[in-house]
């Protein structure tokens, strides 16, 4: 029972993190694309309860550029918190256009999570179908499919991504483009899960009760649906828990190659991409903010994957 504790903690962590991104509109103080050109790379605001004279204020406040007190306001204009305009509050600082990092982080989580899940579902979906089919049928079908899987692992897919990106009509908005690129990665990524599912199927096929069921004249479809597929469940869940963070992180690499989500919409990948620039990494530490979210999220997924792994299956 003790082993259950990390799992339930991780699952509730995931629910909370997904929930935060879902309610980004309310939780974030600003529109993620709103530029404040005079406030480029503003440092994170510090919230005070005591003012310069040491006087305590019940309502927390921040100091603006002219060192005047700006009190926080809560639940106004359908935002959880904010300050009266024209002042701005950047809890996690601002980026080069002076856009609020916190708002971008929360809104960006949506598209990153959707992308991660989408690619995972595609990879796993195709992987399960191909893996089950190959493992169950065996023989030349199996052989051929595994060769194709090898081929898929070896080809230079970067070109396909460049092509997908470049051949799309220009009117398609950046989010859709990004999801299509991510979906392409998901589709290409079927080979690894397929191999794992196949070995799980091979194992299941040899189980005594499957053999018995077959002996009683059970049809192939029935066998697969009732006996074989359930055996692959643990592999599938483990893979899902591993792949979602993998695909979310893949977006950082995509942004590095110029294939990430286009401006001005935020995503964790395109927010982290500037970090490879020397001046950002040395001067503006708050640009790593997405990592504050990404690391716990991935951690929760990893813990889930660990807990779900009944048997080891090196992939």
């Amino acid at each position, binding site marked *: 029972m003790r082993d259950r504790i990390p799992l339930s903690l991780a699952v509730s962590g995931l629910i909370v993190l997904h929930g935060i991104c879902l309610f980004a509109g309310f939780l974030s103080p600003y529109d993620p*694309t709103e*530029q404040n*050109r005079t406030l*480029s790379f503003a440092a994170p605001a510090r919230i005070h309860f005591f003012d310069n004279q040491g006087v305590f204020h019940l309502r927390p406040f921040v100091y603006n550029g002219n060192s005047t007190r700006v009190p926080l306001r809560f639940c106004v204009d359908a935002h959880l918190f904010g300050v009266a305009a024209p002042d701005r509050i950047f809890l996690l600082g601002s980026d*080069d*256009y002076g856009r609020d990092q916190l708002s971008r982080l929360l809104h960006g989580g949506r598209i990153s999570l959707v992308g991660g899940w989408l690619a995972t579902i595609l990879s796993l979906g195709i992987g399960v179908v191909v893996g089950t089919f190959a493992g169950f049928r065996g023989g030349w079908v199996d052989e051929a499919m595994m060769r194709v899987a090898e081929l898929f692992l070896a080809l230079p897919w970067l070109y396909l991504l*460049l092509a997908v*990106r*470049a051949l799309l009509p*220009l*009117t398609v*908005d*950046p989010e859709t*483009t990004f999801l299509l690129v991510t979906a392409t990665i998901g589709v290409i990524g079927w080979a690894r899960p397929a191999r794992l599912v196949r070995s799980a199927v091979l194992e299941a096929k040899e189980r005594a009760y499957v053999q018995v069921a077959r002996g009683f004249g059970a049809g192939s479809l029935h066998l697969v649906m009732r006996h074989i597929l359930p055996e692959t469940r643990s592999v599938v869940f483990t893979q899902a828990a591993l792949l979602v963070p993998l695909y979310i992180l893949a977006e950082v690499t995509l942004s590095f*190659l*110029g*294939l990430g989500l*286009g*401006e*001005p919409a935020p995503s964790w990948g395109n927010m982290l991409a*500037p970090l*490879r*620039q*020397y*001046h*950002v990494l*040395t*001067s503006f530490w708050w640009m790593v903010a997405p990592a504050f979210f990404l690391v716990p999220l991935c951690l929760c997924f990893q813990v889930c994957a660990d807990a779900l792994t009944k048997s080891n299956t090196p992939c």
Partner: protein
Amino acid sequence: MLNKHTVILLALSSLPLLQAAPGSLEELAIAESDAGSYGGTLIIGQKAEPKTLNPVTALDAPSRDIIRRMTADLISIRRDTKAIEPALAKSWTTSKDGRVYTLQLRRGLRFSDGHPFDADDVIFTFQLYLDEKIHSPQRDLLTIAGKPILVRKIDPFTVRFELSQPYAAAERIFDSIAILPKHLLEPAYLNGSLNLAWSLNSAPAAIAGLGPFQLKEYRPGERIVLQRNPYYWKKDRKGNRLPYLDKLEFRFTGGEDAQILQFVSGGTDVLNRVSAKSFSALLKEKSTQGDKLVDLGPGLEYNFLFFNLGPVDPIKNPSVAGKQIWFRQTAFRLALSEAIDRDAIVQLVYGGRGTPIWGHVTPGNKAWRNESIPKPARSVPRARERLSAAGFRWNNQGRLLDSNGNLVEFSIIASASNAERLQMATIIQDDLKALGIRVQVVSLEFRALLDRVLNTRDYEASLLGLGSGDVDPNPEINVWLSSGASHLWNPEQKQPATPWEAEIDQLMRRQMIELDRNKRKILYDRLQQVAAEQLPLICLASPNILVAGRKSIGNFRPSIMDHYTLWNVDQLYFKYPR
């Protein structure tokens, strides 16, 4: 500076004096700079590695950067004064009609392998560049009005160039045309393998030039090392033969950020060009305190937004064709230009180290810039006025509609690998919201972008930058002639599509054959004025040229012209060991 009827005797000018070294036949040039001391290796961070060392076929900038250090040309453009100076040609005369140039070569010079240099090498060199079978990218430069330049040997040290028509500032085309050794390359040329000669795998002994340095070693993907050419043809005022440095090492570092890191950690001595953001980070860096971090001011690069004004098939591409009704209206382009916040671009993209521009000749090019073209500050109300005068109106959500009631929206394509231009596009996107125009920024990989602009013409607007190689207007010719391949908004037209393009064509052609510098300036001023009235290119900003070098480097005199830091590498020296 040039008078068309005079014989130009450079010995009389303020440029380096010519004088035969007493007791020898070598006619060395004298460099006008502080006398330095010998020794040391200068290490330069290079973003990409060279692809070839063959000056005839090299297409890419890194190759040219390195080849340039190993070879010499007949007449050079001095990067600091932007004037021409004699190089391998010690003097020349021009015929009255401006078509015939007779060049006197320096005597007694030797290639880096010790083989003597004479007119035969020059004749051979131009034969290579002009040979159609070799496909040299320089061939077009040496082809004037469709006819290649004729080159004839008069005597072993005199060469005559004949142009099919007068060509303004013709001396400038000799810059960077590397003179090659006939004795080394003729066999390859005769058996048709010249394209494969002087590759990166060639033995150093097989390569020789007249530049200050010669090849010593190449390590694939890692570095290329050049060593001092003992026969180089320049000396300092004290009579010491240049160059001072023993070795020149180019280290291939990858991207700009890796380059900065190398410099910060002391691995390299020179940063040829840095972005404004990295520059300000370097200024804060402790380990580079005291080093020469130089802001040279505006360079020659201009960044601009342009619309697709070319013919688009209305059946294959109805949406672009429909939008061209707006793009082709001058008032629309002018209004957009007025709504763009150029100061914000300079501030956010270049951290203030740049200049807003309204025309393609940047403030860095004082000699040719038309100062009288208007530089209107951002004004959204004026832009809106202009739009409503042109029949545009706004719906109740504040979105812009054209006279037929269509929503005005378009996409801008920009290169994904150029963060600065992408940032400009994002700023413009936000600026145009104020006019009720929704803009989509599409970042494309550079080749995919160019394919759309130049081949398929399937785009609405694009953001690009061009960097002139020279201050003179002539290299820009293919951008401005309506038949030019890089006439970006509507390339390779058979007939100019608009009256103003016809006027630009005419101005460009006239200035090209006009030998009087002042008359040329008037023509080019008019061209800039037409461009500013019609705005085929909505110019945005020009970045400052920012370079860095160790404090120990002497004679470090960077220039806003390419190659910014190493143009006078023959005179660079270490004041004290590193």
